């Protein structure tokens, strides 16, 4: 279990309507520093909206979203967003290095410093060999890793990930899951991870928040007391993992009814 600390991100009675429909209703949630929080739920439960509120891309109708104790009014440098449709979130006319550079340019990093930092970031995500390739020449997994590299270039405290591995095949998904765990362990990031894959949520998270739709609200929060570091085989065969898996599946079944 990760060390207890004051909450980094807080949702205090947050509600939001979009297009006349109530999307989120009275969300109360706090995410601790360095915590890996996963959010699951059926489509339409508002989990993506939740993430976008934390990103500062949306403002709540009631209540407030806080970061480090202050209200979130817009996107912040410390909060990085990884989108699911990586193909559309990368600049197709820039090379991999160029895409990472965008984040550094946005932060005003002087030109001379950018080169080494880009190289280091690409190294961290295992794309050093593809620095000069264009997104169209990269596989799906590589494109997503590139997006992650760009987010890490912001030197964020928080990673908001919106179903980042949803569009990838199973093998790539597994290897990226481990890479994320590795990266987060090394950098000490706080993570809000939205996914529809229940096993992925349990495998990655310290806690799993299960949401219920119409309107979106938090139904239940599961603690994940599994040891770290996690292993694709060992952890998934751990009896505690299986118990949680059962509990989560049952919960979703109830919801569907």
């Amino acid at each position, binding site marked *: 279990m990760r060390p207890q600390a004051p909450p980094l991100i807080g949702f205090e009675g947050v509600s939001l309507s979009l297009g006349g429909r109530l999307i989120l209703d009275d969300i109360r949630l706090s995410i601790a520093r360095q915590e890996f929080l996963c959010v699951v739920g059926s489509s339409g439960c508002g989990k993506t909206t939740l993430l976008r509120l934390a990103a500062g*891309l949306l403002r709540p109708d009631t209540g407030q979203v806080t970061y480090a104790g202050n209200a979130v009014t*817009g996107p912040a*440098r410390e909060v990085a967003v990884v989108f699911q449709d990586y193909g559309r*979130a990368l*600049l197709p006319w820039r*090379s991999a290095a160029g895409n990472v550079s965008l984040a550094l340019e*946005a*932060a005003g990093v002087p030109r001379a410093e950018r080169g080494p930092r880009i190289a280091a970031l690409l190294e961290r995500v295992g794309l050093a060999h593809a620095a000069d390739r264009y997104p169209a020449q990269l596989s799906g997994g590589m494109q997503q890793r590139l997006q992650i590299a760009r987010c890490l270039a912001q030197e964020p405290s928080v990673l908001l990930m919106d179903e980042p591995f949803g569009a990838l095949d199973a093998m790539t998904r597994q290897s990226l899951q481990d890479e994320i765990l590795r990266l987060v362990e090394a950098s000490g990031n706080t993570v809000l991870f939205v996914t529809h894959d229940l096993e992925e949520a349990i495998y990655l998270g310290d806690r799993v928040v299960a949401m219920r739709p119409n309107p979106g609200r938090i139904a239940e929060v599961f603690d994940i007391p599994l040891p770290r570091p996690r292993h694709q085989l060992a952890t998934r065969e751990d009896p505690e993992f299986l118990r949680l898996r059962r509990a989560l599946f049952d919960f979703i079944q109830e919801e569907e009814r």
Partner: protein
Amino acid sequence: MKQGGELPWWIASIGVALGIVLLWQVAADRGWVSPIFLPGPDRALAALREGFAAGGDLTLHVTTTIEHMLYGWVLASVIGIALGALIGSSRRARDYLGLTLEFIRPLPASAIAPVAIAFLGLSQPMVLAVIAFGSVWPTLLATAHGVASVEPRLIEVARALRLSRLQVMFKIALPNAVPDILAALRYGLTVALILAVVGEMLAGQEGLGHRIILAARSFRSPDLFAGVILLGLIGFTSNALLAVAERRLLRWQGR
């Protein structure tokens, strides 16, 4: 990806082209068509040679036409991209100007010639004005479209990275518009050549447009054909050069 079997086809195709030239020569020799308006390729080539020789004036005319075309096109492109970027990035501008642009787009560019003559007389500035007016619309519209149609996800990335409006324009919106702009530039160059010829025909001073009209009036068909061939060559070369540039600049499309 070139297949091994492409070369024979190219050669055969060149053969067809040469065959057409041969047919042309035969038609001229046999007098199937009056030599007054269809000189044989031999006479056309002779006229070309003479025109470029020491005493000939073809070099001057060719240079003038190319200059007209390029100056007008460059001016139009700069204005078109600048205005297009402004219009494309502003929803209000698009709302207010959309209808006006829609109306101007189908207007034949050459129709502006009488207006240009009214203001500028039969002069070089008139020719340039006509060329610029005609070439500006494709670039302007393409830039506006490219800037306005940025992938929404990229806009969110820009927001998440907190890019300034200027940064969004130069790092995201304009690069996104580049493929459209390049295609429009290529088309604009074709328009520029056509309008250069029109302008020169009207202004009656220098340039291939003027020269071929003069040749027609004096019934000197070899000179006329020489001029037409040169115009075709200018059109072909300028288009080919731009096509090469376009391919290089769009390498990232992964074709």
